């Protein structure tokens, strides 16, 4: 080896470091062994977290990216290593999460021959990545890495795949790294359209019943201060999507709750009463809009998004502003006149009061009966001073955690929104804690979802990662069971679960925990968990057949809500 030439595998490591990477989540194998070999010499600069499954690695990288805003990096070998990443790649695309996923690939000379562990990963990844590239020459590695980081974490962030052939890892090259901030065919920062801005300001200034819908884009662009300023200046109530939670503190008087199927009553119903809707960094997902022909009939809608393909995709809008949410709001703010909307806000209070008595109090402070998910979430939120990072799995636990956890700082919710991936929470919490070691990280999971990636308890053990795991055990695949109860005559087909003792399972990994079956024991158990300096698993036996309400059933409009299994919300007097 000549002095200044290094193998592509080492060039990859150096380029990652040059891009500011200090943590990688991954799992080795034959087609990426060269990279792991070089990594051995760089461990002081590049920390590698060996998860117990590639899916765990990629969800951890997602958790890391979402907690920090930095690009998550994943290593996996070719074939099964790569295909084990698919769920996470798809999840990251749906939830706009910046990832650079690096997979090994067989040598380019044997590509297309069904070589051992060869899989056409680029074509598998094409529909679920922002960009996917196969690298076949060592010399291309630095520029491929530079482009990957630029693409992953600019514009609307997303996952990028680099599939690096074995010979590219082995080939020698002279390394130098230049960051990329320009690709002529890719516009990461659209120029502001001042005509659209003034049109939007005109609409906002004439609004009587304005409503802001705050989405994940607000968080991604760091537009929380501008969101708050806009809301306060024109006294506009803010509703958030699931992924937009924590863009405005839960305690802020203008924060009026979550949208969607299991969101709060006031923001859902008020969507159909608003005369102006300002949608920021959100994509009118079907779980948010319900039946489209019954959505926001009275509103002129302003849609602010960095991704122009979201405009008019599901909901026709009146004014589109293409751009980064923070830039757009900063430019919009001076054009918006101060305003007050006391009557409009009072209408939210009336709806909130109904939700409180009909739904919330029953869920968070039940007088008797088995423990409910809502009260556990509520108590954990209080015990962590409403300032933890909430990571959820998917199912009832997700919706109830999102409903009853409270947030005081941004980037405090990490949940699989678009894809709804069970098994997301445990590895994502690991990544979030590694990214934000100073913050408390609480993962809520159902007894079903936790078992989809439960092997990651091994990662927690190996790296001593102090995450708090709350298993809400209802001995059912609860969310599916709820639908079976409500819409399929309670025929519980394949939803009852026979479960292990989760606390014993955790103890096998050296993780302390306790199993709560009695409401009276809950508060102290939560205190012990929160105070514990180590990871902790709290298993709570939950009412087996409790349901999440309110609910906007499939096919219903945002103001056609079920309050419980039998009653619909009656809006005639409201």
């Amino acid at each position, binding site marked *: 080896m000549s002095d200044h030439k290094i193998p592509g595998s080492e060039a990859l490591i150096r380029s990652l470091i040059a891009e500011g990477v200090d943590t990688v989540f991954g799992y080795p194998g034959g087609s990426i062994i060269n990279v792991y070999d070089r990594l051995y010499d760089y461990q002081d600069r590049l920390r590698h977290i060996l998860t117990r499954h590639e899916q765990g690695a990629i969800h951890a990288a997602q958790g890391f990216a979402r907690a920090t805003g930095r690009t998550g990096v994943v290593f996996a070998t070719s074939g099964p290593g790569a295909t084990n990443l698919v769920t996470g790649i798809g999840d990251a695309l749906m939830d706009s999460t910046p990832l650079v996923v690096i997979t090994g690939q067989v040598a380019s000379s044997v590509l297309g021959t069904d070589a051992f562990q060869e899989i056409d990963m680029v074509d598998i990844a094409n529909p679920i990545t922002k960009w996917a*590239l196969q690298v076949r020459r060592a010399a*291309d590695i630095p520029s491929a890495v530079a482009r990957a980081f630029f693409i992953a974490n600019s514009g609307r962030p997303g996952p990028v795949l680099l599939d690096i052939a074995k010979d590219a890892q082995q080939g020698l090259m002279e390394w130098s790294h230049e960051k990329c901030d320009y*690709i*002529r*065919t*890719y516009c990461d920062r659209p120029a502001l359209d001042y005509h659209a801005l003034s049109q939007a300001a005109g609409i906002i200034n004439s609004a009587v019943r304005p409503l802001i819908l705050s989405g994940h884009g607000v968080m991604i662009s760091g537009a929380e201060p501008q969101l708050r300023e806009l809301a306060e200046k024109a006294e506009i109530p803010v509703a958030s999507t699931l992924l937009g939670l924590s863009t405005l503190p839960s305690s802020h008087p203008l924060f009026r709750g979550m949208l969607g199927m299991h969101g709060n009553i006031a923001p859902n119903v008020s969507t159909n009463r608003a005369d102006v809707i300002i949608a920021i960094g959100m994509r009118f997902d079907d779980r948010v809009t319900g039946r489209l022909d019954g959505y926001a009939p009275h509103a002129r809608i302003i849609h602010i998004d960095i991704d122009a393909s979201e405009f008019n*995709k599901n909901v026709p809008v009146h004014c589109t502003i293409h751009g980064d949410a923070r830039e757009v709001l900063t430019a919009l703010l001076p054009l918006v006149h101060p305003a007050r909307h006391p009557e409009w806000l009072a209408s939210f209070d009336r709806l909130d009061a109904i939700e409180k008595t009909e739904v919330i109090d029953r869920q968070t402070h039940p007088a008797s009966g088995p423990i409910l998910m809502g009260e556990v979430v509520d108590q954990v939120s209080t015990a962590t001073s409403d300032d933890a990072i909430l990571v959820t799995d998917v199912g009832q636990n997700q919706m109830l955690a999102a409903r009853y956890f409270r947030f005081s700082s941004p980037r405090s919710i990490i949940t699989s929104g678009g894809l709804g991936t069970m098994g997301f929470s445990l590895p994502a919490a690991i990544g979030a804690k590694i990214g934000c070691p100073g913050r408390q990280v609480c993962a809520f999971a159902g007894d079903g979802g936790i078992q989809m990636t439960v092997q990651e308890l091994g990662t927690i053990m190996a790296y001593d990662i102090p995450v708090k795991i709350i298993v809400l055990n209802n001995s059912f695949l609860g969310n599916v069971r709820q639908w079976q109860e409500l819409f399929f005559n309670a025929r519980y087909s394949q939803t009852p679960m026979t479960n292990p003792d989760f606390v014993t399972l955790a103890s096998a990994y050296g993780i302390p925990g306790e199993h709560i079956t009695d409401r009276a024991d809950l508060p102290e158990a939560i205190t012990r968990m929160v105070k514990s300096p180590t990871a902790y698993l709290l298993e709570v036996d939950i009412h087996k057949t409790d349901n999440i309400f309110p609910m906007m059933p499939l096919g219903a409009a945002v103001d056609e809500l079920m309050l419980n299994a039998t009653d619909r919300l009656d809006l005639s007097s409201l």
Partner: protein
Amino acid sequence: MQERKLFTVTIFSENTVGILNLIAIVYTRRCINIESISASACSIPGVHKVTVTSWSDRPSMIKVVNAIEKIIYVVKAFLYTDDEIVYQEIALYKVPTVRLVDEPELEKIIRRHNARILEITHDYTVLEKTGHNDETEALFEELKAYDITQFVRSGRVCITKDPVEHVTNYLAERDRLRSIQLSGDPSHSPHPFFSEETKENTNL
């Protein structure tokens, strides 16, 4: 119900191997059948033009075009109906030479359709006709009576009637802004997406 029509989408992109696949994914995912597709270099150096036709409705096609524009390599994509473009296809036909010799009517058909003879051998004759789909189809219908053995039609190519060259202008503007950003010198030209060497060796 939205009106279904034949739409033409033209896509300007970097010349990369994977691009057709990326474009096709956008159509297949939405269950839109591609009627014809053609790809070749265009007048802008380094830029390829792909022309795709499909039957669909306008709202669906707008979403298709938006999704195609999201592909990193794509410069721009445009949606047209037939009245907005000048378009053409080419068709080839193979007929047994004996029929041509035996039947004077066949010669008249060839003349009437403005077709050309590309090759004559003892066994077969190859005809060529350019035109719109219905025109090349019409010749095919007539040749059926003469034992036509092969018929093939290319994808559509088209040129816009719009006097503005959007892509050229867009790229020039992108490059100009970038040059100013980099050096303050508008004559400085930034690097193309891939070096020629990389392009050859990398399966994009």
